[in-house]
């Protein structure tokens, strides 16, 4: 019964209540319908017992399209409406509405009909009436049905009995599932202008619209300058000298009370900067480390405008900003920092009246270009470089082996700018040496001095009679090219002519002899060198021509091997040598400037030896030291050896110069002897002996880290 009652109520909704509900819905369609509203409405409408009985589900409703579909989907099967029931009498119980019943009967027919599946209620655009009978049916599509008109005659005041409905054909039955879809078009009932606020400059236009979709709208200027067309196109005045506001109004033509307004902010034209002058020069450059006057020229400047730098701002300081003249020029002072990099600068003018801004064309920032460095020659690394002798772009006479100290005066740089790197560049780095450290214990050429400091040296040109060059460049930290000095040319004079020595040696067996072969002083030795020094085993003469200094000799023992067959005692009392300095540094030189050297290796033939042999291979180097005294001293002595003492006495050089290598000779001697005597009466005979000297060759510095002690050379 309850369900029957609900069904009746549903019919009532469709016929009466629902007519009202549609009207309400329609009315609400005149506002923007939010989905929740619609859903709520649907729920409201569906809030009757009837709908609730069908467990109606409310679907989502799109709202952006301007139409709304409300879909109510019963999830429970719709009970067969086999005619339904209708009230036959007045209501006397809680489930009977007398008045409604009467009303329904009076207005609606076919109350038992239900919407079938997919039936759509469509409200036409602009429909503003009230659904009446046929219309309602049309909308419901009832006209397509064979509606049943069942007159409900007035009954008694109590409706306490139900009559079964008349038989229905099958087609009147709805499907077991179905929904109701409302499709409607929405519009607002209150006119609204869009956009509500705009900003325009002179002569600019803005098209306004309203939400009024039906009927015409009247546009007008409510206040302020400008014009507006009947279509709502507003045009700002052609000249705006100060910020203003215009208000436009739109009203529904048929309802002057339904109006809306919008605001137009009329702005001055933005400032325009056309040229930048620096110290009176259009498009001039800002110079690092300078303070200059900059003038901006343009239009629409204001008063007390602000100026800031955009690009290049980190290097620019703006001060003394003046008042714009005729809104067209403004001057100020720009100080460009010394470390400004190559780049551009732009300025931005901000009009104080409205904050509008204009940006200038860019001008160049001219960085500080460091000057071409000078090269100075000084006598010590601590000397003030500026007091040295300028040598760049000149040829300076020096000696090979002479200490050279070069520097470059520190460039005068703007504040904030520093030298980031510096480099010395010798024309041929192989011709340069950091020095030569030599004593009896070790000898080696020293590494080149640092090439990345402002002072280089002391260093030495080591190729005699040769032109050498050196340049210097440095970089500052502002991105400018690193300037390079003019080349300093050095004429490193030294020995001339044939720099190679000549070795004089007797290579056959006549170059070997035994002295005292019949006593304990027997000695197997290399001897009989060519004249005029036959007492030596080999002698050397340097052939180079020199005007000063001395030749320095260094002998390295490549290999010395003794072999002894002893009758008694120690088989081999002698130490072999291998890649060692021969006794002392330097090797003794003889003759003027030490141009001669000699050697006479041998081996004592002790009486207890039965046989003895020696293989001797050495390399003799010849160098030349220009004998440059230290600063402030009149003369000096190059390294030398006092051979009048035994062992020899080495004397280190007192000169500031170093020897430079000229050449080397590899030579050797080997000999063997047999003792045919016995005990204290030896009798030695020479069994073999030969010598050689390779052709001399140009050489680099020798190197050693060990010394071989002999009778003459104590490695001291």
């Amino acid at each position, binding site marked *: 019964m309850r369900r029957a009652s609900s069904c009746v109520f549903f019919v009532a909704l469709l016929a009466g209540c629902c007519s009202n509900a549609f009207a309400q819905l329609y009315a609400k369609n005149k506002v923007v319908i939010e989905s929740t509203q619609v859903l709520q409405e649907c729920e409201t409408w569906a809030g009757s017992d009837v709908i609730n009985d069908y467990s109606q589900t409310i679907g989502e409703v799109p709202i952006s399209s301007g139409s709304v579909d409300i879909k109510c989907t019963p999830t429970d099967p719709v009970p067969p409406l086999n005619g339904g029931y209708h009230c036959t009498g007045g209501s006397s119980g809680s489930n009977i509405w007398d008045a409604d019943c009467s009303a329904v009967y009076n207005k609606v027919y076919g109350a038992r009909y239900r919407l079938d599946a997919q039936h759509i209620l469509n409200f036409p655009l602009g429909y503003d009436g009230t659904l009446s009978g046929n219309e309602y049916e049309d909308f419901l599509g009832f006209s397509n049905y064979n509606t049943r008109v069942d007159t409900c005659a007035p009954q008694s005041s109590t409706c306490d009995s139900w009559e079964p409905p008349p038989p229905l054909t099958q087609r009147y039955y709805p499907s077991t599932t179905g929904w109701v879809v409302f499709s409607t078009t929405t519009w607002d009932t209150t006119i609204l202008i869009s956009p509500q606020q705009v900003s325009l400059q002179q002569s600019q236009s803005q098209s306004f619209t309203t939400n009024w979709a039906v009927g015409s709208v009247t546009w007008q200027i409510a206040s302020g300058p400008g014009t507006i067309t009947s279509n709502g196109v507003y045009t700002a005045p052609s000249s705006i000298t100060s910020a203003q506001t215009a208000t436009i109004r739109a009203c529904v033509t048929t309802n002057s009370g339904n109006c809306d307004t919008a605001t137009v902010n009329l702005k001055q034209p933005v400032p325009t900067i056309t040229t930048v002058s620096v110290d009176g020069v259009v498009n001039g450059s800002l110079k690092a480390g300078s303070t200059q006057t900059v003038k901006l020229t343009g239009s629409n400047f204001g008063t007390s405008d602000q100026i800031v730098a955009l690009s290049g701002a980190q290097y620019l300081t703006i001060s003394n900003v003046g008042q714009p003249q005729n809104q067209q020029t403004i001057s100020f002072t720009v100080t460009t920092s010394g470390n400004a990099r190559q780049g551009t600068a732009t300025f931005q003018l901000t009009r104080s009246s409205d904050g509008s801004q204009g940006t200038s064309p860019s001008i160049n920032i001219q960085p500080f270009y460091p000057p071409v460095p000078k090269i100075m020659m000084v006598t010590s690394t601590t000397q003030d470089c500026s007091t040295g002798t300028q040598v760049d772009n000149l040829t300076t006479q020096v000696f090979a082996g002479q200490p050279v100290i070069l520097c470059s005066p520190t460039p005068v740089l703007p504040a904030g700018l520093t030298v980031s790197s510096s480099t010395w560049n010798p024309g041929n780095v192989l011709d340069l040496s950091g020095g030569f450290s030599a004593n009896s214990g070790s000898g080696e050429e020293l590494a080149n001095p640092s090439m990345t400091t402002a002072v280089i040296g002391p260093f030495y040109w080591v190729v005699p009679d040769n032109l050498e060059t050196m340049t210097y460049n440095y970089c500052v930290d502002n991105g400018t090219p690193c300037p390079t000095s003019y080349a300093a040319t050095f004429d490193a004079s030294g020995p001339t002519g044939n720099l190679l020595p000549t070795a004089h040696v007797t290579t056959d067996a006549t170059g070997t*002899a035994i002295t005292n072969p019949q006593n304990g002083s027997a*000695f197997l030795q290399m001897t009989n060198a060519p004249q005029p020094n*036959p*007492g030596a085993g080999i002698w050397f003469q340097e052939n180079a021509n020199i005007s000063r200094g001395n030749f320095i000799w260094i002998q390295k023992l490549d290999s010395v091997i003794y072999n002894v067959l002893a009758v008694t005692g120690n088989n081999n009392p002698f130490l072999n040598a291998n890649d060692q300095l021969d006794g002392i540094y330097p090797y003794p030189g003889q003759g003027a400037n030490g141009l001669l050297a000699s050697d006479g290796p041998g081996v004592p033939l002790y009486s207890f030896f039965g046989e003895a042999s020696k293989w001797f291979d050495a390399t003799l180097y010849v160098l030349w030291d220009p004998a440059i005294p230290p600063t402030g001293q009149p003369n000096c002595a190059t390294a030398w050896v*006092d*051979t*009048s*003492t035994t062992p020899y006495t080495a004397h280190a050089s007192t000169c500031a110069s170093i020897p430079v290598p000229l050449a080397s000779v590899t030579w050797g001697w080997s000999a063997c002897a047999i003792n045919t005597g016995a005990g204290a009466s030896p009798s030695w005979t020479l069994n073999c002996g030969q010598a050689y000297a390779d052709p001399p060759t140009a050489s680099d510095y020798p190197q050693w880290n060990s010394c071989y002690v002999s*009778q*003459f050379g104590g490695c001291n």
Partner: protein
Amino acid sequence: MCPNLEAATNDVQMEMGMIKLTKLAIVCVMLVVFAANNITLDAQTKMAATKSASLSVSVSLQKDTFATNEKPLAILTLKNISNRIVSVRTDMVDYRVHVERDTREAPRTSYHRRIRGELLPGETGLAAGGVVDSVPPGGSDIRKYDLSAFYDLAVPGKYALYIEVLDESSGIWLRTKTVEFTMQAASQ
């Protein structure tokens, strides 16, 4: 062009410049002789040909008395008394230094023993070689010996010194006169 060799070599205290001068003089003479090409030198041949000495030898001391912490320096002068160039070795092959105290030889140092081939276990002989000087006729060569390198002279007292020199051209060992010197205890 060539300096007076006699004057240059007689001064045992000569400066290095003087030494160089002497060397220069020697070389000059060498070259002159070489140019003359009238001398043939072969030590063995020469030894066999003549037994007359080519050198005269003498020894002196830097001073008569030395402190025990000083290096007593003996100065050996080799004078070429022949009419030909004489080669003079600068190692110890042709020299024997001899120091006595109270008629007994002083204790030899290791260096001395190694030169002489009188080796103790573990000791090695010292190789010979080095420069060979050429002394022109009438010229002299100076050799200097730190006697403390050859003998232990730590004991104060009187010592006697002589040096033997092998004249390679004749094969004769020449002996200097004996000279005396005193070693004094070093003052504290």
